[in-house]
């Protein structure tokens, strides 16, 4: 089948042996991602247009641990083979590409020259030692980013490191870590749209959602499709706190807490707030999307959230096993009894100021929500 005769992405996939049923499954996973009912899948399918050829992409590794690539390899539906064979033409991706050295660099140079590619950036922008804390093919990582970013149709910063420097920029930031957005003006690519997907590592389902937005909903032509917040994050993914959607939320309301690890309270799946959970200040949809093909997620397996999706997350959220600072003197043992839901509601927006300022220095308290005002249950 010649490429010119392909009508849209479904035809493209059909030519590659993907059945209509599998295609609707893709659409279903996108719907779930966006927080919609799976019933929305046909509507998403109907929105499909364009897609005469595979969307070219360049995946750049900066100061990274490769965890975001690893995480991407855990995507379920589509899986990583579907992504690299059937959805995108990823012409450069150090961790999985066949070519190395000069052959790899050639593939990247050709893609950049042709333009129109999505640039996916993983890892921290390394500015320390005049950029030499990262060297690739004899250049600094900053030079490599500048070349690849300036001609990109859009940039997707995957993982907290690419978003704002991640753990690498934590105090005292010995290697000069920064986020992609932080250097956009300095390196001259501030006109290129940047989509930020934080957390450490990135959740692959979010990458898939953005890719599908680009391929099916024409996001490159109409960025409004992505519905980004002021930090460049898709609102449908990063618009609510973990606490908002946590399956253990009922225990928080009831004042039922895990007070120590390895105890019966964990078996009962009580709330992890008292052992340091940062769910109330962390804006991601982890409880809905979960991780590793929905096998589990942090809280489900007994761990407090460490807020890895927050800006400067290591400085703002550590010590991870301590109750959050600056929450207006709230003591969890009183939540659900005396103070009831009003104090709990105060926690809901604790993270907003941390996000905006990049530092946790306390936060204003939101007016309480009606549903939080109910009396607490028994312990």
């Amino acid at each position, binding site marked *: 089948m010649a490429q010119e005769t392909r009508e849209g992405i479904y035809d493209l996939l059909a030519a590659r*042996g993907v059945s209509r049923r599998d295609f609707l499954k893709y659409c279903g996973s996108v719907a779930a991602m966006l927080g919609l009912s799976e019933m929305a899948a046909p509507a998403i399918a109907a929105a499909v247009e364009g897609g005469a050829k595979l969307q070219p992409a360049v995946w750049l590794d900066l100061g990274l641990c490769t965890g975001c690539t690893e995480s991407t390899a855990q995507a379920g539906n589509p899986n990583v*083979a579907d992504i690299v064979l059937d959805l995108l033409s990823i*012409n*450069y991706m150090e961790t999985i590409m066949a070519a190395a050295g000069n052959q*790899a660099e050639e593939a990247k140079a050709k893609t950049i020259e042709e333009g129109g590619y999505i640039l996916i950036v993983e890892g921290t922008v*390394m500015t320390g030692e005049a950029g030499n804390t990262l060297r690739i093919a004899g250049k600094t990582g900053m030079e490599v980013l500048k070349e690849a970013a300036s001609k990109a149709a859009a940039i997707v910063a995957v993982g907290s490191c690419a978003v704002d420097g991640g753990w690498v920029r934590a105090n005292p930031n010995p*290697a000069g870590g920064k986020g992609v957005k932080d250097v956009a003006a300095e390196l001259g690519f501030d006109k290129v749209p940047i989509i930020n997907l934080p957390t450490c590592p990135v959740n692959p389902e979010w990458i898939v959602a953005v890719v599908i937005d680009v391929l099916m909903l024409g996001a490159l032509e109409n960025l409004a499709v992505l519905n980004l917040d002021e930090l460049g994050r898709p609102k449908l993914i990063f618009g609510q706190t973990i606490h908002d959607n946590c399956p253990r939320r009922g225990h928080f309301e009831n004042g039922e807490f895990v007070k120590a690890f390895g105890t019966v309270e964990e078996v009962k799946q009580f709330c992890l707030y008292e052992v340091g959970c940062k769910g109330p200040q962390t804006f991601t949809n982890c409880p809905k999307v979960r*991780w590793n093909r929905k096998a589990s997620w942090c809280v489900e397996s007994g761990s407090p959230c460490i807020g890895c999706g927050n800006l400067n997350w290591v400085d703002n959220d550590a010590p991870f096993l301590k109750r959050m600072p600056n929450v207006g003197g709230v003591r969890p043992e009183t939540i659900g009894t005396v103070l009831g839901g009003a104090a709990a509601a105060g926690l809901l927006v604790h993270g907003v100021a941390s996000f905006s300022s990049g530092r946790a220095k306390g936060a204003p308290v939101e007016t309480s929500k009606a549903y939080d005002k109910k009396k607490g249950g028994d312990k």
Partner: protein
Amino acid sequence: VARAVIDPVTRIEGHLRVEVEVESGVVTDAWVSGTLYRGMETILEGRAPADAFYVSQRICGVCPISHGHASTMASEAALGIQIPDGARLVRNIIEGAETLHSHILWFYTLTALDYVDVVSALSANIADTYALAEKAGTSTADFGQVQKRIKTFVEGGQLSIFTNGYWGHSAMKLPAELNLIAVAHYLEALEMQAEAAQIIALMGGKFPHFMTSLPGGTAWMPTEEKLGGILFRWKRVRDWIANTFIPDTLAIAPFYIEAATYGKGCGNFLSWGCFDDASFDPKKRALPRGMIVGGKLEVLAPDVAQVKEYVEHAWYDSPTALNPAQGKTHAKFTTYDTNDKYSWVKAPRLNELPMEVGPLSRMLVAYLDGVPQVKELIDTTLAALGVAGKPEILVSLLGRIAARNLETLYVADEMGKWIMELVAAIKGGEAKFFTESTATDGDGAGLWEAPRGALGHFISVKGGKIANYQAVTPSTWDLSPRDAAGVRGPMEEALIGCPIADVEKPLEALRIVHSFDP
């Protein structure tokens, strides 16, 4: 004399440059350069020991479990915490799942493209492919469909991650049918590595970067639902390793048998050991602690006090020859110069010797130590390859690959036992998973193994905060530059003698590099 440079080395974790000198088609000298510095150890200073469990995993997104465990063990050693037996089993299962995940991903996704010609698979005869799979005793797939998928892909003209691969290179030796089998299993392996990772997610919340093996034990408490999910996935992955991964290895090896004659390396091997039994004695681990020196096949006891890290050829201005327990890391880039400083990797030495670490080291130590299952696996494999009774042949490029693949099956089988032990402990109602501690001061080391080799985390805690932190990773050992005496690191040494057919496309050197799973 020609110089060949591979920069970036792809299909690895992180950033690496390899430069080799080639004379008459053979490598005569080599320089391995780590090209990224992030400063993890400095960032951890002043933080709570438990925070290091979470943050230090971010050293490596392919082996975060091992870093998390080494960090937690260092804190536990420093603070005098003994974890309960239930936590030991949970950690072994999580660590085992990472090993399966990592080795499967390494063989099929990272290294196979050095040996398997994807484009050649297009000319495979489908009936012959089924016959070959049966003869090799490896699993079949819908080979016709796989070939069709690759054909459509190639004819589309956009090769994605296969762009500019080494297709048709003279060092590619497999027949088209075996290439097609390998491509089909490359696709299956992507599912299997994910399934192994799901075992980690069930117990640890997610992978990579898990959440639960805190100093003191584990935050995860087993539930019937999660145990069922673990057992089901373990069984499927284990059977795939036995019925696909191992037979594939044995089918491919004879076409590259000359790889048993080079890539030997420094001949010194170190294993800190991995997978504790109930005694917590490192010599009794499923993969025991030990070292081998100068290629002499006997196991000696390594002393961590004899480890020193040299920085004469690395971009640091902190003091050289420090033991990691007192180690310092202060970056100072000069310029890339193979005669002077050329890497962000320090040069660790044990008893002043470079040490190769990884599955080959672990399996040699276990074999010579007489671990029965390992002895049987290796002896059977040597016999199948026609070199019965010659374990020394494992000290080579081919041996390094075979050791990793055989270790995958060994660990998978041991995992089954740990899962059943955990179930029995829960049934007995005695299982404990966490030990509380209020200790605030002490020094300790966590000496463990990542899938790619010996790993040590070193912590000093004062007043409940980290006063000093150092990690010596497998890559620090294997990718080490020269030391103060000018002695090459293990990978540099392994590159010597490697044949290179085309200096513009030094595929054979890439194979040596990948055999270490850097």
